[in-house]
């Protein structure tokens, strides 16, 4: 509220007059609004000058007075009073204000329901039976445990619980969503998260299709096979940026990526590792998982230093977890998830960043996912601040440490978190 200049208040104070005080009847009538309009003005004029009478009026106020009584007209005088007109106007304004507030509230509530979040984070219940991502193509054979990989990708909604698809036998191959406590009970991966710059992908895409960009200057190398499915877009592997850098990749397809052919797997095995500076191994010093985004916009990770790559679809795991969870939250989320568009059920990832076990992946339609255990469990994140949720495609993710991160969207929005994604600000 703007302040009144002190000099003005001083003059107001000095304007106190020495006129007689109104009697108790008039002050009572003033408080109870039973005075004639002319009397009310006189009393008001005196009250504007006399602090003693103002004090008396304040003390006279009853304990529970209905203050919304602007339409209480003074004594019916011979002259129409300003109060009546003013009271109708006040009622009209109050009604309009109430209507606007109600409409705004309903709109915000509907918007929040659509975005499936009332806070900056949505946590799903854990699903232990999540199958691997939707991989329609034959599984790659280049892996040492490729047999399991053969079967796992075909299980779209199956129970491939612990079929190890990766070289790390102690890891669950399927990716499920963390429970409400997103720091799940699952032990963190022994491998710290590591971003595999999608530059290689981008370059590989660029070789086959225009439009790809990369945050780092890549070196041509053998492409990672999994992302470039069907072998048609097998490109060159390139050097990858540090894990904390955001890699921007533009892809032209929204289809889910299928596992690469065995030849592609071999190509992937030759992908260069991420810059050592970018790796943070918080466990026992084993090679951290590498993350990448394929040319088709699929999120991928590798646990064998880039030799093999596996598609990851956190969103699918979210939907599956809501389909099987028994909690009320999951039911509500399931209902909301069922309303999502196809684009959201198969998001096209455009950026990934990892810092230790913390992995962030973002893409089309404001799809943002976080894993605190190197991809074992995922949570869908919807940044929300001041009644606004993140919109547009996430084009870049940058985390300098597990707590401080920055998102950029295709619509020019910039979202920043300082607490690991619990809260966001624009």
């Amino acid at each position, binding site marked *: 509220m703007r302040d009144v200049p002190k*000099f003005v*208040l001083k003059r*107001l*104070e000095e304007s*106190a007059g020495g006129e007689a005080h109104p009697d108790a*009847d008039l002050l009572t009538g003033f408080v109870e609004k*039973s005075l004639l309009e002319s009397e009310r003005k006189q009393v008001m004029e005196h009250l504007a000058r006399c602090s*003693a009478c103002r004090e008396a009026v304040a*003390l006279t*106020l009853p304990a529970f007075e209905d203050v919304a009584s602007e339409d209480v007209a003074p004594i019916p005088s011979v002259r129409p009073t300003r109060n009546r007109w003013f009271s109708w106007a006040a009622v009209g304004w109050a009604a309009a204000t109430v209507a606007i507030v109600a409409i705004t509230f309903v709109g915000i509530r509907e918007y929040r329901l659509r975005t499936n979040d009332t806070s900056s984070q949505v946590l799903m219940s854990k699903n232990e039976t999540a199958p691997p991502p939707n991989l329609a193509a034959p599984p790659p054979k280049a892996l040492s445990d490729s047999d399991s990989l053969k079967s796992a990708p075909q299980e779209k909604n199956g129970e491939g619980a612990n079929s190890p698809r990766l070289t790390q036998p102690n890891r669950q191959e399927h990716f499920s969503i963390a429970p409400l406590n997103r720091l799940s009970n699952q032990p963190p991966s022994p491998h710290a998260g590591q971003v595999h710059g999608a530059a290689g992908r981008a370059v590989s895409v660029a070789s086959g299709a225009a439009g790809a960009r990369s945050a780092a200057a890549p070196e041509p190398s053998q492409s990672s096979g999994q992302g470039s499915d069907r072998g048609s877009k097998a490109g060159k592997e390139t050097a990858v940026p540090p894990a904390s850098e955001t890699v921007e990749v533009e892809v032209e397809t929204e289809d889910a990526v299928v596992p690469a052919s065995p030849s592609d797997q071999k190509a992937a095995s030759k992908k260069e590792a991420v810059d050592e500076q970018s790796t943070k191994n918080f466990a026992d010093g084993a090679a951290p998982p590498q993350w990448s985004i394929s040319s088709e916009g699929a999120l991928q990770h590798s646990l064998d230093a880039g030799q093999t790559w596996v598609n990851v679809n956190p969103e699918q795991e979210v939907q599956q977890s809501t389909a099987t969870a028994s909690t009320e939250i999951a039911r509500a989320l399931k209902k909301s998830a069922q309303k999502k568009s196809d684009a959201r059920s198969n998001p096209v990832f455009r950026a990934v960043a990892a810092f230790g076990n913390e992995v962030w992946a973002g893409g089309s339609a404001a799809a943002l996912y976080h894993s605190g255990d190197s991809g074992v469990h995922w949570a869908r994140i919807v940044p929300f601040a001041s009644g606004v949720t993140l919109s547009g495609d996430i084009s870049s993710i940058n985390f300098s440490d597990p707590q401080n991160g920055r998102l950029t969207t295709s619509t020019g929005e910039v979202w920043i978190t300082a607490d690991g994604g619990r809260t966001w600000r624009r």
Partner: protein
Amino acid sequence: MSTLKPISAAVQRAVAEMRSELCARSGCENFGLTSESFAAILGEVAAKYLPSETDQAEAHAFLLTLRVEELALARACAAGVDAAWDVFLVRYREKLYHSALRIARDDAAARELADGLYAELYGVNTREGERVSKLASFTGRGSLEGWLRTVLAQEFVNRYRRAKRLVSLEEEIEDGAQFAAPEPERSTAVDPRLESCTDAALAALSSEDRFVLAAYYLDGRPLAEVGRMLGVHESTISRKLDKLAKTLRKNILAGLARLGVGRREAEQALEVDVRDLHVNMRRTLAQESLGRTFSKVGDFGKDQSS
């Protein structure tokens, strides 16, 4: 209560016309008042508040607004009718103490306040050999309960003012008050143009606007309380204050510009610290903030026309 104002013919006609209706509504005869005496009371009240040029219709409307039942009760108590006092004590005894407690916020002070008022209501004081009751001044413009609260509040304000004047020297020494020579008044003189423009801007405001400014800034009352005093929501007061601040500033600056004061100079003049001003100490003492001091122009009840 006595009034020196003559009762106009229009008022007399209105009273005569409504006498039976109002007497029936008031139940004055239950309180020991005759119809004639109650009609005289009505005429007295109407003459006190209505201008002499009031016509019969206005007087008629005015009489309808009176709390005639409570008026009859109060006047019967003032007249010493025991039956009226029985009714009064049943209705208002506890309310009086509760109101005193709300005002004084201290049980002992509240009891003292309420007991003192009871004595005045009963008529401990005498005038020319006759008992004078404060209830004789009740005119029925508002509720009797509200009137009792107002009387209590006025008495409380008066007592507080008297108590502040009589603060002992020892207490002030204990409180750390110093009795050194007063500081010499600072030499910064007020620009008379600023004074005139400020006074003009304040005068242009309505009494309600000035009341809001005084209640909020000078008395330090919260928005909600100011709103209750006017019967509006605190958000209305907030908007009004914001608007008033802008209006005052704009009008003062415009006035100074018309007097040839530059914009920058005018803004600097407005922001001058009040403590640097050459202050009229006597006028300053006449008005203090936050209920600590009150007008020196007599206590409540001594300057009333009645």
